[in-house]
């Protein structure tokens, strides 16, 4: 019976010397902990307040907390093996809160869990199950870090991780071993002291290393900005974005100190994967080093010694890093914040960037073309003008209005709308939504564009917008909110999916690889609709990286307008991956992805799959336009 259901053994009594030694060590450990943790806390609390932060609505925060922290769902889902091992360690830590409190209280004669009592027995057994899983888990993580060595964890072996793993293993092993020793012997005393020493060594190591995440990240996850890639409004006349230490907000500082250096952001970053300087992890650690060395009151520029301006402008804002981050770091607002700091003060000098800004300061579209070209397209395509009577305003966007391929997509989508009998019209005048300048950090220009467009839409009494461009959707729906109330908007994939049953299917076996655009997938959570639309024309196959793990085309964040001059081209890497599915057709749902792949596939030469938008696929089954 005792062998099958052993009881946890505890030293029966402690001498005064032992108690004094324990108390002394505990105080020393707590002091060493606080000496560092207090500093970190001070740096976070002395950072600027987040003016736009609201705790409410709190429901989503609680849900995210339970899902991501308590259940460790994101950690497990995105890296199942390592994630599960981590989850076991985390859950064991939670279970061990009571065990550890009882352990320390016991030394001072205040133990509250009796190993022989019903509750105590049950709880120690409960904890033992977790301890076993944790011991296995931490061993697994140790083997992964020191023997398998995934490159995302960095070139350098982290000795501190080894020490932490050893301490955790010792904590679990000594606890488990205590079930199998006699309560009166020396063995139990040795186990007790080894457990105690491991615990008191562990505590001060935490705030000195990335293991700080186990204290901070629950708060970081709970206190996120509230939605994916949310760029906070500038506050006051002296806020130009993240220029210097004084611009770091509490959320940014908290996030910088929460980074656990797991490298998931790096693993999924299109820039880091194609030989660019940018590595999202380095950006976050750069901010942490800045805070450590200079603190949140410093006027020293954030871009310079600690972070590279060049790197900040290599971000496509695809959001893969932010989506992956298990500790709640919001990389995109940080990167855009750094760009805002550089652009709003004029510190960023880039020929392509200036060209884009100047084109939009004077003109209406990011391509720098004469708006008469858009008028000609509307006339040639016989697109009806929006007059307030139609249901939808068909927003063309720069690509839909000026890019030859974008125009083909608009033309086919318009045909489908007519076929379905949906009334629509296009605006006589339309300006760029400001997406590229917003992501590049030009707040002045973005405000001008957003306000001009909002006014035009209000004048035309537009209630509902549909567009082929996910960047327009995102910018109109979310980013314009800073300057007014935008009309309802949806992406054409959502519209088309709703009417998919009424659209004629094409019976063939064509394999279609669908590429999830970042601004439709991660930014809008739309994954199924475009697949349903593409399936009208054949069989949809998946690229290895799909849905929320989709790999960027390289266009976002205004980068399509800048020169991508170092490393491999992001678009070519992704196009190769899509072509390798063996699909005859690559389906895109974003005119920017489309233009990137158009060039990348052309570079692959003969035999490359054809490239079509989902609207073009959906239009295949329609009666020919010239058929009478």
């Amino acid at each position, binding site marked *: 019976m005792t062998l099958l259901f052993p009881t946890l053994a505890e030293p029966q009594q402690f001498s005064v010397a032992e108690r004094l030694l324990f108390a002394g060590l505990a105080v020393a450990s707590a002091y060493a902990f606080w000496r560092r943790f207090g500093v970190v806390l001070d740096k976070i609390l002395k950072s600027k307040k987040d003016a736009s932060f609201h705790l409410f609505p709190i429901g989503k925060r609680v849900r995210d907390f339970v899902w991501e922290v308590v259940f460790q769902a994101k950690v497990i889902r995105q890296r199942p093996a390592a994630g599960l091992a981590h989850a076991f360690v985390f859950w064991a830590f939670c279970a061990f809160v009571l065990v550890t409190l009882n352990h320390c209280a016991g030394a001072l004669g205040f133990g509250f869990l009796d190993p022989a009592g019903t509750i105590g027995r049950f709880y120690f057994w409960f904890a033992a199950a977790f301890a076993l899983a944790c011991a296995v888990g931490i061993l697994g993580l140790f083997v992964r870090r020191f023997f398998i060595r995934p490159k995302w964890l960095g070139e350098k072996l982290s000795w501190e991780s080894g020490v932490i793993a050893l301490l955790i293993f010792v904590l679990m092993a000594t606890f488990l071993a205590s079930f199998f020793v006699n309560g009166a012997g020396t063995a139990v005393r040795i186990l007790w002291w080894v457990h105690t020493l491991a615990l008191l060594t562990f505590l001060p190591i935490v705030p000195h290393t990335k293991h700080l995440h186990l204290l901070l990240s629950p708060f970081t996850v709970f206190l996120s900005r509230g939605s994916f890639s949310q760029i906070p409004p500038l506050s006051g006349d002296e806020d130009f974005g993240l220029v210097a230490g004084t611009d770091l907000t509490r959320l940014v500082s908290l996030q910088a100190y929460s980074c656990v250096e797991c490298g998931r952001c790096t693993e999924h970053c299109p820039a880091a994967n194609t030989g660019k300087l940018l590595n999202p992890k380095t950006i976050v650690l750069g901010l942490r080093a800045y805070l450590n060395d200079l603190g949140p009151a410093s006027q020293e520029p954030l871009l310079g010694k600690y972070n590279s301006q060049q790197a900040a402008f290599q971000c496509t804002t695809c959001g893969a890093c932010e989506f992956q981050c298990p500790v709640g770091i919001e990389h995109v607002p940080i990167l855009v914040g750094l760009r805002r700091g550089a652009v*709003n003060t004029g510190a960023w000098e880039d020929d392509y960037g*200036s060209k884009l800004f100047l084109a939009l300061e004077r*003109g209406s579209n990011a391509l720098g073309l004469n708006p*008469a070209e858009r008028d000609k397209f509307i006339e040639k395509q016989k697109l009806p003008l929006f007059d307030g009577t139609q249901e939808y305003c068909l927003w063309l966007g720069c690509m839909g209005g000026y890019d030859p391929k974008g125009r083909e997509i608009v033309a086919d989508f318009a045909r489908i709308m007519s076929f379905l009998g949906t009334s629509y019209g296009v605006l006589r005048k339309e300006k760029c939504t400001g997406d590229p300048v917003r992501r590049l950090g030009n707040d002045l220009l973005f405000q001008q564009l957003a306000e001009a467009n909002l006014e035009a839409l209000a004048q035309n009494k537009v209630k509902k917008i549909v567009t082929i461009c996910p960047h327009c959707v995102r910018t109109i729906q979310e980013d314009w909110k800073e300057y007014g109330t935008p009309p309802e908007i949806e992406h054409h994939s959502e519209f088309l999916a709703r009417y998919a049953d009424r659209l004629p299917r094409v019976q063939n076996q064509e394999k279609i690889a669908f590429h999830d655009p970042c601004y439709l997938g991660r930014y809008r959570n739309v994954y199924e609709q475009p697949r349903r639309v593409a399936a009208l024309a054949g069989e949809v196959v998946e690229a290895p990286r799909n849905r929320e793990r989709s790999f960027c085309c390289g266009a976002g964040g205004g980068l399509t307008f800048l020169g991508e001059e170092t490393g491999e081209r992001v678009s070519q890497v992704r196009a190769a991956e899509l072509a390798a599915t063996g699909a005859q057709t690559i389906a895109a749902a974003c005119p920017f992805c489309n233009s990137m792949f158009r060039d990348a596939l052309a570079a692959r030469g003969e035999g490359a799959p054809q490239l079509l938008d989902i609207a073009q696929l959906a239009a295949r089954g329609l009666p020919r336009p010239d058929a009478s």
Partner: protein
Amino acid sequence: MKIIVAIKQVPDRDSPVHIDAAGKWIEESDLQYAMNESDAHALEEALQLRDQHGGEAIVLSAGPERVGSTIREALAKGADRAIHIVCDDLGARDALGVARLLAAAAKQENPDLILTGLQSEDLGLGQTGVIVAELLGLPHATLILHVEKTGTGIEVKRELEEGWFQTIELPTPAVLTIQSGGNKLRYATLLGIKRAKTKEVRQLAAADLAVDAAPVAVLEEIGLPKKQKSTQMLAGTAKEAATALVEKLKFEVRVL
């Protein structure tokens, strides 16, 4: 260096152009306005000289209230202060009339250099800057791409025909008309706009400058250019056609 940049606000390139009922000017009601492009390059040249050698860059512009937006844009890009000659009858004055206003205002400042664009995008006369120089009795040079300060004055790079350039030296004070594209324009920033709010804009009434407003040249009639499309087919093999195309792009269109 104290530099005055004379800037004109012109109808935006992208604005629809309609001729008004009298046939003498375009409908101004639905026009949008912008800074004349070569003036923007003149401003950039002035800002670079100011940044390099110190001193100040002063914006000078004549026109009705709406010109204020272009003045603010120039201040936001970095000009130190501005002078706005308020007059609602700019269209009724000829190049001489406008130059008289600009020269009178500029004279009060005693600048080392007066820069302006080589011509305006609306009328394209290309005379105003040169007349200002004549009225003030200053040396001038036109079609300038680059300005360098020397010990005694300035050295400028002029654009000539057929891809030729000329470098000449001038004493200061002088007047230069700047060609588009000689420098890279800077973009407007939020910081600039906010700083611009505190910069001085001195308004002068055109009447107070006491200059002769009577035009010596009068605009009789304006018209839209006739749309002409002439497609030329280049015959021969691909290689011959490509060679012919390169020739045309180089010497007729002059874009290569």
